[in-house]
């Protein structure tokens, strides 16, 4: 599954259950099909417009990496 980064943020201040993972990048990806998905980033940080590919799913959350 591939798409383009629609928007992103790097979260420094996390909710209770995610404190140990901070900082982490949250993104919305526009998939090639046009659907948008909210997910996270594996590996290098991404910017708006970057092409990304689904790397894995953890606990139902899609993790994307730069293509």
């Amino acid at each position, binding site marked *: 599954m591939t798409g383009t980064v629609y928007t992103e943020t*790097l*979260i420094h201040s*996390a909710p209770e259950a995610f404190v140990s993972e901070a900082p982490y990048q*949250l993104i919305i990806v526009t998939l090639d099909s046009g659907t948008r998905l909210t997910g996270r980033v594996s590996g290098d940080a991404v910017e708006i417009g970057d092409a990304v590919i689904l790397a894995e799913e953890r606990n139902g959350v899609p993790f994307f990496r730069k293509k």
Partner: protein
Amino acid sequence: MRPVAIIGIGKTPFGAFPDRDLRSLAVDSGNKALLDAGLEPKAVEAFYLGNFAGPSFIGQSHLAPFIAGPMGITGVPCTRVEAACASSGSAFFHAFSAVAAGLYEVALVTGVEKMTSQQTPRVAEILAMAGECGTEGKAGATFPALFAMIARRHMYQYGTKKEHLAAVAVKNHANGAKNPDAHMKKIITLEQAMAGKPIADPLNVYDCSLVSDGAASVVLAPLDRAREWTKKPIRVLGIAQTSDFVALDRKEDITVLQAVRTAAAKAYKMAGVGPQDIQLAEVHDCFTIAEILAIEDLGFVSKGEGGPYTAEGRTALTGERPVNTSGGLKAKGHPVGATGVAQLCDVALQIRGEAGDRQVSRHELGLAQNLGGSGASAVVTILAAA
């Protein structure tokens, strides 16, 4: 539908009050509003409570009668309304509707939240429940993160700069410093606002509203009877509540608060006025970017112009259209469930000419815009001197 007026207002100060509980804050503001209207509690025919997360924050449910009883209000409908940060704006909308329909002569609306008894990560977790928990929440989103993603996209599409966001914070802190009831009465510089501790890029701590305790109340009655109780009735000239998807990724363009646009269009139509007529506004600056979006989607400026318009000082106290003269959620504070009614109290104070050091010169027609979540609920209310 008959015309409706606000005949009494009452607020507690906003802040971190370790020795005050949710109920005492709510009761305090309600008593003040009733006193302002010269009414006894037994005159109240319906009580509406706006509260977002009392059960999570303080472990108490059934909050409307829990608060109304000790205020001396029993034997009438007591209803809690929850619409995230638009809870009390929505409670007000429903109270207005009932009074306008002729169901009640006197209705009391209270908004309250007690937030500071929890630590920040737990507060973030409770607030995140106003987003789409199955996707956004599971991925570790916070509310600052949702608005940070909106800010990033706004910057990308319109060239909005970090300095524009900071200008909102600087202005609202300057206004808050003139408001004795504000949580933070501290003037900040642009440099300080730019260099705050990062929360969710590009937002830093100065881009975020405050975690506060507080309550606010208003009393509603039919306009034709308002002068039985007050010399300074405020007419509810127009009001609308609308909705949108909760999930940010379901919105076509996240730089637009579509629910605000539709609520504003309806409220302007009902009031018979347009955005150019509004002299002052309290808008929902839960984050600095949210104020920029609000002034655009209310039609004060074109899409993409909100940042420069703010940086030029045109929404300052002395500007052509003062926005958030109270200090806004940014400096006055944001006890989530109290915010919608507090905004109405602040617009009413300006219209009455009782806003003290922050009083603006043109104050016959004001607007309040209350937002829930990342834009799934919106209430826009237009108030005028009656």
